[in-house]
Protein backbone atom coordinates (compact mmCIF):
# COMPACT_ATOMS: atom_id res chain seq x y z
CA UNK A 1 0.00 0.00 0.00
CA UNK A 2 2.76 2.44 0.92
CA UNK A 3 4.40 1.65 -2.41
CA UNK A 4 1.33 3.10 -4.13
CA UNK A 5 1.82 6.32 -2.17
CA UNK A 6 5.44 6.61 -3.29
CA UNK A 7 4.48 6.03 -6.92
CA UNK A 8 1.82 8.72 -6.62
CA UNK A 9 4.41 11.10 -5.23
CA UNK A 10 6.58 10.48 -8.29
CA UNK A 11 3.65 10.93 -10.69
CA UNK A 12 2.52 14.14 -9.00
CA UNK A 13 5.88 15.86 -9.17
CA UNK A 14 6.34 14.95 -12.83
CA UNK A 15 2.81 15.97 -13.82
CA UNK A 16 2.92 19.22 -11.83
CA UNK A 17 6.28 20.21 -13.37
CA UNK A 18 4.83 19.68 -16.84
CA UNK A 19 1.55 21.46 -16.19
CA UNK A 20 3.27 24.53 -14.72
CA UNK A 21 6.06 24.73 -17.29
CA UNK A 22 3.47 24.08 -20.01
CA UNK A 23 1.59 27.11 -18.75
CA UNK A 24 4.76 29.24 -18.69
CA UNK A 25 5.68 28.12 -22.22
CA UNK A 26 2.19 29.05 -23.34
CA UNK A 27 2.78 32.58 -22.09
CA UNK A 28 5.16 33.02 -25.04
CA UNK A 29 2.29 32.56 -27.49
CA UNK A 30 2.06 35.81 -29.40
CA UNK A 31 5.26 37.18 -27.80
CA UNK A 32 8.05 34.99 -29.23
CA UNK A 33 11.00 36.85 -30.74
CA UNK A 34 10.51 35.03 -34.08
CA UNK A 35 7.42 33.40 -35.52
CA UNK A 36 9.14 29.98 -35.45
CA UNK A 37 10.01 30.45 -31.79
CA UNK A 38 6.51 31.54 -30.96
CA UNK A 39 5.30 28.30 -32.55
CA UNK A 40 8.01 26.24 -30.85
CA UNK A 41 7.17 27.39 -27.33
CA UNK A 42 3.44 27.10 -28.00
CA UNK A 43 3.92 23.55 -29.35
CA UNK A 44 6.02 22.54 -26.39
CA UNK A 45 3.34 23.97 -24.10
CA UNK A 46 0.76 21.80 -25.82
CA UNK A 47 3.00 18.71 -25.54
CA UNK A 48 3.71 19.28 -21.87
CA UNK A 49 0.10 19.82 -20.90
CA UNK A 50 -0.85 16.67 -22.85
CA UNK A 51 1.89 14.77 -21.05
CA UNK A 52 0.72 16.03 -17.66
CA UNK A 53 -2.77 14.83 -18.57
CA UNK A 54 -1.41 11.34 -19.30
CA UNK A 55 0.16 11.29 -15.82
CA UNK A 56 -2.94 12.68 -14.09
CA UNK A 57 -4.92 9.91 -15.82
CA UNK A 58 -2.64 7.28 -14.29
CA UNK A 59 -3.17 8.96 -10.90
CA UNK A 60 -6.90 8.88 -11.52
CA UNK A 61 -6.73 5.14 -12.20
CA UNK A 62 -4.91 4.80 -8.87
CA UNK A 63 -7.84 6.39 -7.05
CA UNK A 64 -7.00 10.11 -7.19
CA UNK A 65 -9.57 12.60 -8.46
CA UNK A 66 -10.22 13.23 -12.14
CA UNK A 67 -7.53 15.10 -14.08
CA UNK A 68 -9.40 18.43 -14.34
CA UNK A 69 -10.04 18.50 -10.61
CA UNK A 70 -6.42 17.70 -9.84
CA UNK A 71 -5.12 20.28 -12.30
CA UNK A 72 -7.49 23.13 -11.52
CA UNK A 73 -8.72 22.77 -7.94
CA UNK A 74 -5.53 22.78 -5.91
CA UNK A 75 -3.68 25.70 -4.35
CA UNK A 76 0.07 26.29 -4.42
CA UNK A 77 0.95 24.29 -1.25
CA UNK A 78 -0.62 21.18 -2.84
CA UNK A 79 1.61 21.37 -5.91
CA UNK A 80 4.78 19.28 -6.09
CA UNK A 81 6.49 21.16 -8.92
CA UNK A 82 10.04 22.46 -8.51
CA UNK A 83 10.74 26.20 -8.25
CA UNK A 84 12.45 26.26 -11.66
CA UNK A 85 9.20 25.78 -13.56
CA UNK A 86 7.14 28.37 -11.69
CA UNK A 87 9.53 31.28 -12.26
CA UNK A 88 8.13 33.99 -14.57
CA UNK A 89 9.42 33.80 -18.13
CA UNK A 90 11.55 36.89 -17.80
CA UNK A 91 13.78 37.52 -20.79
CA UNK A 92 14.21 35.01 -23.60
CA UNK A 93 17.67 34.04 -22.36
CA UNK A 94 16.22 32.75 -19.08
CA UNK A 95 13.38 30.93 -20.86
CA UNK A 96 15.85 29.20 -23.19
CA UNK A 97 18.23 28.19 -20.41
CA UNK A 98 15.34 26.84 -18.32
CA UNK A 99 14.12 24.99 -21.40
CA UNK A 100 17.59 23.48 -21.94
CA UNK A 101 18.15 22.48 -18.32
CA UNK A 102 14.64 21.16 -17.68
CA UNK A 103 14.03 19.33 -20.94
CA UNK A 104 17.33 17.47 -20.89
CA UNK A 105 16.40 16.22 -17.41
CA UNK A 106 12.86 15.48 -18.50
CA UNK A 107 13.97 13.41 -21.48
CA UNK A 108 16.33 11.33 -19.34
CA UNK A 109 13.55 10.81 -16.80
CA UNK A 110 11.12 9.48 -19.43
CA UNK A 111 13.85 7.36 -20.99
CA UNK A 112 14.69 5.77 -17.65
CA UNK A 113 11.02 5.18 -16.86
CA UNK A 114 10.44 3.40 -20.18
CA UNK A 115 11.79 0.27 -18.45
CA UNK A 116 10.04 0.89 -15.13
CA UNK A 117 8.46 -2.14 -13.47
CA UNK A 118 5.33 -0.01 -12.92
CA UNK A 119 3.79 -0.72 -16.28
CA UNK A 120 1.23 2.14 -16.59
CA UNK A 121 4.13 4.58 -16.27
CA UNK A 122 6.45 2.54 -18.51
CA UNK A 123 3.83 2.54 -21.27
CA UNK A 124 3.39 6.30 -21.42
CA UNK A 125 7.13 6.86 -21.02
CA UNK A 126 7.93 4.78 -24.09
CA UNK A 127 5.68 7.07 -26.08
CA UNK A 128 6.47 10.43 -24.53
CA UNK A 129 10.26 10.15 -24.71
CA UNK A 130 9.92 10.37 -28.51
CA UNK A 131 8.04 13.66 -28.17
CA UNK A 132 10.52 15.16 -25.72
CA UNK A 133 13.47 14.40 -28.03
CA UNK A 134 12.25 17.33 -30.10
CA UNK A 135 12.25 19.61 -27.08
CA UNK A 136 15.84 18.65 -26.31
CA UNK A 137 16.84 19.09 -29.95
CA UNK A 138 15.32 22.57 -30.02
CA UNK A 139 16.94 23.58 -26.72
CA UNK A 140 20.39 22.25 -27.63
CA UNK A 141 20.26 23.96 -31.04
CA UNK A 142 19.48 27.35 -29.56
CA UNK A 143 22.00 27.01 -26.77
CA UNK A 144 24.73 26.36 -29.34
CA UNK A 145 23.58 29.12 -31.69
CA UNK A 146 23.34 31.83 -29.06
CA UNK A 147 26.20 30.64 -26.84
CA UNK A 148 28.61 30.63 -29.77
CA UNK A 149 27.48 34.03 -31.03
CA UNK A 150 29.60 36.98 -30.01
CA UNK A 151 29.16 39.70 -27.43
CA UNK A 152 25.82 40.26 -25.75
CA UNK A 153 24.33 36.98 -26.97
CA UNK A 154 27.06 34.84 -25.38
CA UNK A 155 27.22 36.93 -22.21
CA UNK A 156 23.50 36.84 -21.59
CA UNK A 157 23.34 33.07 -22.09
CA UNK A 158 26.21 32.58 -19.64
CA UNK A 159 24.63 34.93 -17.10
CA UNK A 160 21.26 33.19 -17.41
CA UNK A 161 22.95 29.79 -17.01
CA UNK A 162 24.77 30.99 -13.88
CA UNK A 163 21.58 32.38 -12.39
CA UNK A 164 19.38 29.39 -13.26
CA UNK A 165 21.62 26.47 -12.41
CA UNK A 166 20.76 26.16 -8.69
CA UNK A 167 17.07 26.28 -9.54
CA UNK A 168 17.64 23.46 -12.02
CA UNK A 169 19.40 21.37 -9.37
CA UNK A 170 16.12 21.63 -7.48
CA UNK A 171 14.53 19.35 -10.08
CA UNK A 172 16.37 16.52 -8.36
CA UNK A 173 15.15 17.19 -4.81
CA UNK A 174 15.19 13.73 -3.22
CA UNK A 175 12.07 12.33 -1.62
CA UNK A 176 12.09 10.47 1.68
CA UNK A 177 10.87 7.18 0.30
CA UNK A 178 12.76 6.97 -2.93
CA UNK A 179 14.81 3.91 -1.90
CA UNK A 180 11.71 1.75 -2.07
CA UNK A 181 11.02 2.82 -5.65
CA UNK A 182 14.65 2.17 -6.58
CA UNK A 183 14.64 -1.29 -4.98
CA UNK A 184 11.46 -2.24 -6.81
CA UNK A 185 12.88 -1.11 -10.17
CA UNK A 186 10.17 1.51 -10.52
CA UNK A 187 12.45 4.55 -10.73
CA UNK A 188 16.22 5.01 -10.80
CA UNK A 189 16.06 7.82 -8.23
CA UNK A 190 16.82 11.52 -8.39
CA UNK A 191 20.51 11.16 -7.56
CA UNK A 192 21.20 8.80 -10.46
CA UNK A 193 19.08 10.97 -12.72
CA UNK A 194 21.03 14.09 -11.79
CA UNK A 195 24.26 12.26 -12.62
CA UNK A 196 22.96 11.26 -16.06
CA UNK A 197 21.77 14.82 -16.60
CA UNK A 198 25.18 16.31 -15.81
CA UNK A 199 26.81 13.84 -18.19
CA UNK A 200 24.34 14.80 -20.92
CA UNK A 201 24.41 18.58 -20.59
CA UNK A 202 28.13 19.14 -19.90
CA UNK A 203 29.34 18.43 -23.47
CA UNK A 204 26.53 20.53 -24.97
CA UNK A 205 27.32 23.47 -22.70
CA UNK A 206 30.99 23.23 -23.73
CA UNK A 207 30.09 23.00 -27.42
CA UNK A 208 28.01 26.12 -26.93
CA UNK A 209 31.10 27.98 -25.72
CA UNK A 210 29.66 28.22 -22.21
CA UNK A 211 30.63 26.76 -18.84
CA UNK A 212 28.65 25.29 -15.97
CA UNK A 213 28.97 27.15 -12.66
CA UNK A 214 31.77 25.77 -10.44
CA UNK A 215 30.63 22.90 -8.25
CA UNK A 216 31.60 24.84 -5.12
CA UNK A 217 28.79 27.31 -5.88
CA UNK A 218 26.06 24.68 -6.28
CA UNK A 219 23.19 25.23 -3.87
CA UNK A 220 20.13 23.30 -5.01
CA UNK A 221 16.86 25.15 -4.49
CA UNK A 222 14.64 22.61 -2.74
CA UNK A 223 11.16 22.83 -1.25
CA UNK A 224 8.90 22.61 -4.28
CA UNK A 225 8.44 18.85 -4.01
CA UNK A 226 7.14 19.34 -0.47
CA UNK A 227 4.71 22.10 -1.37
CA UNK A 228 6.87 25.09 -0.44
CA UNK A 229 6.79 27.55 -3.31
CA UNK A 230 7.84 31.06 -4.28
CA UNK A 231 5.36 33.91 -4.48
CA UNK A 232 5.13 33.28 -8.24
CA UNK A 233 3.12 30.04 -8.22
CA UNK A 234 -0.21 31.13 -6.72
CA UNK A 235 -0.76 34.03 -9.18
CA UNK A 236 -0.01 31.59 -12.03
CA UNK A 237 -2.61 29.16 -10.66
CA UNK A 238 -5.14 31.96 -10.19
CA UNK A 239 -4.76 32.94 -13.81
CA UNK A 240 -4.73 29.35 -15.11
CA UNK A 241 -7.94 28.46 -13.29
CA UNK A 242 -9.80 31.74 -13.68
CA UNK A 243 -12.24 30.50 -16.33
CA UNK A 244 -12.61 27.04 -14.78
CA UNK A 245 -13.57 28.48 -11.40
CA UNK A 246 -16.40 30.58 -12.87
CA UNK A 247 -18.31 27.32 -13.43
CA UNK A 248 -16.41 24.18 -12.38
CA UNK A 249 -19.21 21.87 -13.54
CA UNK A 250 -19.45 23.31 -17.06
CA UNK A 251 -19.43 20.95 -20.05
CA UNK A 252 -16.90 22.07 -22.68
Amino acid at each position, binding site marked *: MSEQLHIKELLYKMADDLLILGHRNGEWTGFGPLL*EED*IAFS*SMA*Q*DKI*GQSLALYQVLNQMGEQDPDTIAFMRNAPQFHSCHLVEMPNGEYDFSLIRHFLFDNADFLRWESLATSTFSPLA*KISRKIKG*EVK*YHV*FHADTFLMKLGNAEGESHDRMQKALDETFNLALGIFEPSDNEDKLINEGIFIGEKALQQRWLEAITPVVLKAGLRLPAESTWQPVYGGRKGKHTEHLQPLLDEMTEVFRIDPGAEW
Partner: protein
Amino acid sequence: MITEHDIWLALEEVMDPEIPTISMVDMGIITGVEMKDGGNYVKVNMTPTFSGCPALRIMESMVKERLEQMHIPHIEVETTFDVAWNSDRITEKGRLALLKHGLAPPEPKREGYIELAVLNDVACPYCGSRNTTLKSPFGPTLCRALHYCNNCLQAFEQFKPVF
Protein backbone atom coordinates in the same frame (compact mmCIF):
# COMPACT_ATOMS: atom_id res chain seq x y z
CA MET B 1 -23.73 -10.19 -40.30
CA ILE B 2 -20.93 -7.69 -39.77
CA THR B 3 -17.40 -9.06 -39.64
CA GLU B 4 -14.22 -7.61 -38.20
CA HIS B 5 -13.06 -7.05 -41.77
CA ASP B 6 -16.14 -4.86 -42.38
CA ILE B 7 -15.22 -2.77 -39.35
CA TRP B 8 -11.67 -2.22 -40.59
CA LEU B 9 -13.00 -1.24 -44.04
CA ALA B 10 -15.36 1.26 -42.43
CA LEU B 11 -12.56 2.70 -40.31
CA GLU B 12 -10.49 3.24 -43.45
CA GLU B 13 -13.11 5.82 -44.41
CA VAL B 14 -12.52 7.85 -41.26
CA MET B 15 -9.99 10.47 -42.18
CA ASP B 16 -7.54 12.31 -39.93
CA PRO B 17 -9.28 15.62 -39.13
CA GLU B 18 -6.02 17.57 -39.61
CA ILE B 19 -4.76 15.74 -42.72
CA PRO B 20 -7.87 14.73 -44.69
CA THR B 21 -6.00 12.60 -47.27
CA ILE B 22 -5.01 9.92 -44.74
CA SER B 23 -7.29 7.56 -42.84
CA MET B 24 -6.91 6.84 -39.16
CA VAL B 25 -6.12 3.22 -40.04
CA ASP B 26 -3.25 4.25 -42.34
CA MET B 27 -2.03 6.69 -39.71
CA GLY B 28 -1.59 3.71 -37.36
CA ILE B 29 -3.90 5.22 -34.74
CA ILE B 30 -6.29 2.24 -34.67
CA THR B 31 -4.54 -0.52 -32.74
CA GLY B 32 -7.26 -3.13 -32.58
CA VAL B 33 -10.89 -4.08 -33.07
CA GLU B 34 -12.68 -6.39 -30.64
CA MET B 35 -16.07 -7.95 -31.41
CA LYS B 36 -18.37 -9.79 -29.04
CA ASP B 37 -21.94 -10.95 -28.75
CA GLY B 38 -22.33 -11.91 -32.43
CA GLY B 39 -21.33 -8.47 -33.65
CA ASN B 40 -23.63 -6.57 -31.28
CA TYR B 41 -20.65 -5.19 -29.37
CA VAL B 42 -17.66 -3.60 -31.05
CA LYS B 43 -14.72 -2.00 -29.31
CA VAL B 44 -12.11 0.04 -31.16
CA ASN B 45 -8.75 0.62 -29.49
CA MET B 46 -6.75 3.71 -30.39
CA THR B 47 -3.35 5.19 -29.50
CA PRO B 48 -2.44 8.90 -29.63
CA THR B 49 0.14 10.14 -32.16
CA PHE B 50 1.07 12.87 -29.68
CA SER B 51 -0.12 12.94 -26.07
CA GLY B 52 -1.09 16.60 -26.47
CA CYS B 53 -2.94 16.10 -29.76
CA PRO B 54 -6.07 18.26 -29.56
CA ALA B 55 -7.83 16.19 -32.26
CA LEU B 56 -7.98 13.07 -30.10
CA ARG B 57 -11.50 13.49 -28.73
CA ILE B 58 -12.77 14.44 -32.19
CA MET B 59 -11.20 11.32 -33.68
CA GLU B 60 -12.87 9.16 -31.05
CA SER B 61 -16.26 10.61 -31.86
CA MET B 62 -15.66 10.27 -35.62
CA VAL B 63 -14.93 6.56 -35.17
CA LYS B 64 -18.03 6.17 -33.06
CA GLU B 65 -20.22 7.98 -35.58
CA ARG B 66 -18.96 5.82 -38.43
CA LEU B 67 -19.81 2.63 -36.54
CA GLU B 68 -23.21 3.98 -35.55
CA GLN B 69 -24.01 4.19 -39.26
CA MET B 70 -23.59 0.39 -39.30
CA HIS B 71 -26.31 0.06 -36.63
CA ILE B 72 -24.08 -1.66 -34.10
CA PRO B 73 -25.94 -1.53 -30.77
CA HIS B 74 -22.96 -1.33 -28.40
CA ILE B 75 -19.90 0.65 -29.44
CA GLU B 76 -16.91 1.49 -27.33
CA VAL B 77 -13.87 3.53 -28.32
CA GLU B 78 -10.89 3.67 -26.01
CA THR B 79 -7.58 5.51 -26.35
CA THR B 80 -4.69 4.12 -24.32
CA PHE B 81 -0.90 4.00 -24.45
CA ASP B 82 -0.93 0.16 -24.51
CA VAL B 83 0.57 0.26 -28.00
CA ALA B 84 3.00 3.17 -28.26
CA TRP B 85 2.49 5.04 -31.51
CA ASN B 86 5.58 5.66 -33.63
CA SER B 87 5.88 6.99 -37.16
CA ASP B 88 6.66 3.54 -38.62
CA ARG B 89 3.04 2.66 -37.84
CA ILE B 90 2.03 4.79 -40.85
CA THR B 91 1.31 2.39 -43.72
CA GLU B 92 2.81 2.62 -47.22
CA LYS B 93 -0.56 3.83 -48.47
CA GLY B 94 -0.56 6.39 -45.69
CA ARG B 95 2.86 7.70 -46.67
CA LEU B 96 1.59 8.32 -50.21
CA ALA B 97 -1.47 10.07 -48.78
CA LEU B 98 0.79 12.40 -46.78
CA LEU B 99 2.74 13.25 -49.94
CA LYS B 100 -0.53 13.97 -51.69
CA HIS B 101 -1.28 16.51 -48.98
CA GLY B 102 2.13 18.16 -49.61
CA LEU B 103 3.72 16.69 -46.50
CA ALA B 104 7.05 14.86 -46.61
CA PRO B 105 6.50 11.47 -44.95
CA PRO B 106 8.61 10.65 -41.88
CA GLU B 107 11.86 8.83 -42.57
CA PRO B 108 11.57 5.20 -41.49
CA LYS B 109 13.58 4.07 -38.49
CA ARG B 110 16.94 2.81 -39.73
CA GLU B 111 19.47 0.42 -38.32
CA GLY B 112 21.87 2.56 -36.29
CA TYR B 113 19.37 5.40 -36.57
CA ILE B 114 21.20 8.59 -35.61
CA GLU B 115 18.41 10.09 -33.62
CA LEU B 116 17.98 13.68 -34.75
CA ALA B 117 20.71 14.02 -37.36
CA VAL B 118 18.23 12.35 -39.68
CA LEU B 119 15.94 15.37 -39.40
CA ASN B 120 18.05 17.23 -41.92
CA ASP B 121 17.94 14.39 -44.45
CA VAL B 122 14.46 14.81 -45.85
CA ALA B 123 13.30 14.66 -49.49
CA CYS B 124 11.32 17.67 -50.70
CA PRO B 125 7.70 16.60 -51.40
CA TYR B 126 7.61 18.87 -54.49
CA CYS B 127 10.86 18.13 -56.38
CA GLY B 128 12.32 15.13 -54.50
CA SER B 129 15.66 16.82 -53.80
CA ARG B 130 17.41 15.97 -50.54
CA ASN B 131 19.16 19.33 -50.56
CA THR B 132 16.84 20.58 -47.83
CA THR B 133 17.25 22.31 -44.48
CA LEU B 134 15.28 21.91 -41.27
CA LYS B 135 14.00 25.35 -40.28
CA SER B 136 12.17 24.37 -37.10
CA PRO B 137 11.22 21.09 -35.43
CA PHE B 138 7.84 22.64 -34.57
CA GLY B 139 5.19 23.53 -37.14
CA PRO B 140 1.48 24.26 -37.46
CA THR B 141 0.53 21.05 -35.64
CA LEU B 142 2.47 18.97 -33.11
CA CYS B 143 3.17 16.30 -35.72
CA ARG B 144 4.82 18.57 -38.30
CA ALA B 145 8.26 20.16 -38.73
CA LEU B 146 9.18 23.07 -41.03
CA HIS B 147 11.75 22.56 -43.79
CA TYR B 148 13.09 24.49 -46.77
CA CYS B 149 14.11 23.05 -50.14
CA ASN B 150 17.33 24.63 -51.42
CA ASN B 151 16.70 23.15 -54.88
CA CYS B 152 13.18 24.33 -55.76
CA LEU B 153 13.26 27.13 -53.17
CA GLN B 154 10.03 26.10 -51.50
CA ALA B 155 9.17 25.88 -47.84
CA PHE B 156 7.53 22.56 -46.96
CA GLU B 157 6.35 20.59 -43.96
CA GLN B 158 7.30 17.11 -42.87
CA PHE B 159 5.32 14.69 -40.77
CA LYS B 160 7.86 14.19 -37.98
CA PRO B 161 9.59 10.89 -37.39
CA VAL B 162 8.81 9.89 -33.78
CA PHE B 163 10.38 6.90 -32.05
